[in-house]
């Protein structure tokens, strides 16, 4: 992007404000204010759930467990859980919609919505302090087909949000004003951004969408104060770089190899490693033009947080032909594994397998199917799947996969991993695509059997991958999961139910019909005035639940 265009964009943003001249005038002052000490710092985010009145990063802490220590709502009283308030976004997006996880600090919720709306909301009443709406271009590419956002990152008085036109914004959390705005990539080629930025010590990490277009994915780090880019990791190697041997020797193919990074990552502060999932190679269903494993598509990558350098990778679906992006929340835990303590990372994958990897080395420890997928039924000793049906023979998981980006949860004391499973039946028919910048190139078509399809909340034993219990839904579901230390699992489904389960037995203890499918979002919980709240986005509403006041 030229400086002129950048300036146009920034000015365009300002002209939307009523007093843009004044804004120009005080702009430098606001940058200075953003550096003050009020608001949560890196140490606060690092402490995760130790202050339960806060939820400062997408999963509540860096580990991605989405497991809160709060116990006020428990298996005995959850049946009396009731809505306290509902926030209506006033936006029109339906179906795919409200995928965000709200952040909360000092009684204020910070919430992003579809079409790059955002709000600060009073956590007690659901009343709004401010609203932001980005003036998006009319010729959005990927961003038009999935106009969603998964949340803010937060540091001090700054909030960070990515946009459908592939920018990263910093906000002043007190009034929603923009502190800086940087372009991640040119949206007109096919890029967009939808994840919640991951804030570390002195940097904001974000990925990018666009693997359905002729794009090349990356993970970026930015300076939270200035927006200056600190490093970039390209998910598809350049010519001659390690990994390029898994592609045809053609710089053009590498330059549009896909590998989006649109879901959030997790972080291990001791190892100083970032764990991030990488999406499908491009074209999605047509692989003849890209023989090889196509690294680092459909992989989990572990990056050095200071430099962005790759430490290790594990590829779940080599040479993917089914659009099974590995953009899932990597869940970090320290567990006893075959008699010894190990640092592991766990992933429930779109290809239908649940994985446990050593997160220091990337060593493959376990891979077991959690759905009836016929793509493969086992992972070989070398960590590679033994593929039985690439999709052309029918009835493999559809392109939305056996699970997807909806966050799972890990309950350390029970050793159980909870995730939403989708049972679907799709046949893939590849077709050589034309590759035009700004146009999607799936490379074929899919036939989905409308008579088959269901969903389930499943509890997996992480030692064996075996199913401990399940609760079935009438249709394939995109709702995420939260667990709390009171022995509860909260989950949402495609029919709009928000539900609580006994984490041990799987018994359904409570449900509430929100009126719209719960898509992509996992619940969050926090303590306010001594009262525990649980929040879930659904359709175009955000609802807060609590026990009745005594």
């Amino acid at each position, binding site marked *: 992007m030229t400086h002129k265009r950048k300036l146009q964009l920034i000015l365009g943003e300002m002209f939307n404000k009523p007093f843009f001249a004044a804004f120009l005038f005080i702009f430098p002052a606001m940058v200075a204010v953003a550096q003050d000490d009020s608001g949560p710092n890196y140490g606060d985010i690092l402490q995760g759930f130790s202050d339960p009145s806060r939820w400062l990063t997408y999963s509540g802490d860096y580990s991605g467990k989405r497991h809160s220590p709060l116990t006020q709502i428990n298996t005995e009283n959850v049946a009396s859980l009731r809505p306290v308030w509902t926030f209506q976004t006033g936006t*029109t*997006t*339906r*179906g*795919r919609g409200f995928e965000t996880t709200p952040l909360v600090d000092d009684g204020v919720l910070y919430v992003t919505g579809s079409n790059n709306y955002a709000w600060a909301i009073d956590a007690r009443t659901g009343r709004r302090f401010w609203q932001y709406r980005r003036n998006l271009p*009319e*010729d*959005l590419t990927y961003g*038009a*087909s*999935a*106009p969603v956002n998964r949340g803010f990152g937060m540091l001090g008085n700054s909030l960070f949000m990515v946009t459908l036109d592939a920018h990263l914004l910093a906000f002043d959390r007190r009034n929603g004003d923009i502190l800086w705005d940087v372009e991640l990539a040119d949206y007109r080629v096919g890029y967009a951004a939808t994840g919640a930025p991951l804030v570390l010590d002195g940097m904001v990490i974000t990925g990018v969408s666009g693997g*359905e277009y002729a794009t090349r994915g990356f993970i970026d780090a930015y300076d939270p104060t200035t927006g200056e880019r600190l490093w970039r990791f390209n998910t598809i190697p350049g010519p001659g770089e390690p990994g390029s041997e898994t592609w045809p020797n053609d710089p053009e193919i590498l330059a549009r190899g896909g590998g989006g990074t649109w879901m959030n990552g997790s972080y291990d502060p001791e190892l100083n490693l970032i764990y991030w999932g990488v999406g499908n190679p491009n074209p999605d269903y047509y692989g003849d033009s890209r023989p090889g494993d196509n690294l680092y598509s459909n992989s989990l990558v572990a990056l050095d947080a200071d430099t962005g350098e790759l430490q290790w990778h594990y590829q779940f679906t080599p040479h993917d032909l089914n659009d099974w992006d590995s953009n899932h929340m990597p869940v970090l835990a320290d567990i006893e594994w075959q008699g010894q303590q190990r640092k592991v990372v766990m992933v429930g994958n779109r290809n239908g397998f649940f994985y446990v990897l050593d997160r220091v080395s990337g060593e493959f420890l376990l891979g077991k199917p959690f759905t009836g997928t016929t793509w493969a039924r086992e992972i070989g000793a070398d960590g590679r799947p033994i593929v039985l049906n690439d999709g052309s023979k029918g009835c493999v998981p559809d*392109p939305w996969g056996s699970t997807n980006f909806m966050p799972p949860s890990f309950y350390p004391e029970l050793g159980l991993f909870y995730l939403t499973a989708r049972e679907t039946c799709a046949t893939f*028919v590849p*077709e*050589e*695509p*034309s590759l*035009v910048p*700004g*146009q*999607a*190139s*799936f490379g*074929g*078509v*899919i*036939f*989905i059997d*409308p008579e088959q*399809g269901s969903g389930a909340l499943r509890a997996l034993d992480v030692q064996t991958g075996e199913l401990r219990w399940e*609760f*079935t*839904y*009438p*249709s*394939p579901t995109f709702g995420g999961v939260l667990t709390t230390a009171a022995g509860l699992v909260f989950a949402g*489904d*495609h*029919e*709009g*139910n928000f*539900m609580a389960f006994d984490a041990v037995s799987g018994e*359904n203890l409570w*449900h509430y*019909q929100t009126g719209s499918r719960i898509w992509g979002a996992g619940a969050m919980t926090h303590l306010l005035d001594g009262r525990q709240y649980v929040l879930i986005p659904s359709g175009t509403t955000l609802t807060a639940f609590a026990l009745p006041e005594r």
Partner: protein
Amino acid sequence: MSQEAQHHRGLSGQASPILVYSALCLLLAVQRYTPRAVLAQQTNPLASDPRAAAAGGVIFRAQCATCHGADAKGISSIDAPDLTLMWTQPGMSENRVFSRIQGGVQGSIMPSHDFPDTEIWMLVSYLRSVAVSGATEEFRGNTENGAGLFADFCADCHRVGREGGSLGPNLGRITLRRTQAALRSSVRDPNSTIDRGYKPISLTTVGGDTVLGVIKSEDAFSIQILDSDQRLRAFSKSELISSDRAIASLMPAFAERQLNETQLDDILNYLHQQQ
């Protein structure tokens, strides 16, 4: 984007099957490019060209099939409608379909598309070619007989205009959406295809009642039906002893001795006259 650039993209954009590509090049060569503002015209300039539908099919599979399905029949779980049925909607026109592709659909995730106009018209041609429509068929029965037979055999459950029941689908305009062969097959064997919203179920309540009906909706905890008395009812799944979905359609099968081919012709012609 300049006209020239659009032209160029149209040419280079569709490289898949050689035949279609050639057809596209030819079409673009013969079609004089018209600026967008003027092209809000009423008719498809490619309507008479049989190659346009094939070229449109290639574009459709690359750009539209992920949501609307490879056969344009839609994917209900993501609210993507069946496009083969849209032509039976009142007021639907090629011009309107053109506008929807170009401008998107407000309030839905159907985005706008910055395709060259010629490519959009190719898509319109393709969608025309896959439209489910029996309207061009010849109907030979006796309408008056058909009206009487419909009242006797069908109207308890099916509506046409202001008359009839609601347990089965409304049959107004049905001859536009289904061929005569398909309708005949449904009369002889109602289980051959059952539309969403009309799948049969038999429920047994804890009180021992058995309720027959068609499923309108359900979630993990409840089910909403229209029962065989045509009353909307909802049940909590916890108050049901059993639910059986493997039962036959609530519509009886009409064998030849109950309703012969001539009588069936009469009913179909009656239905066709009722649009």
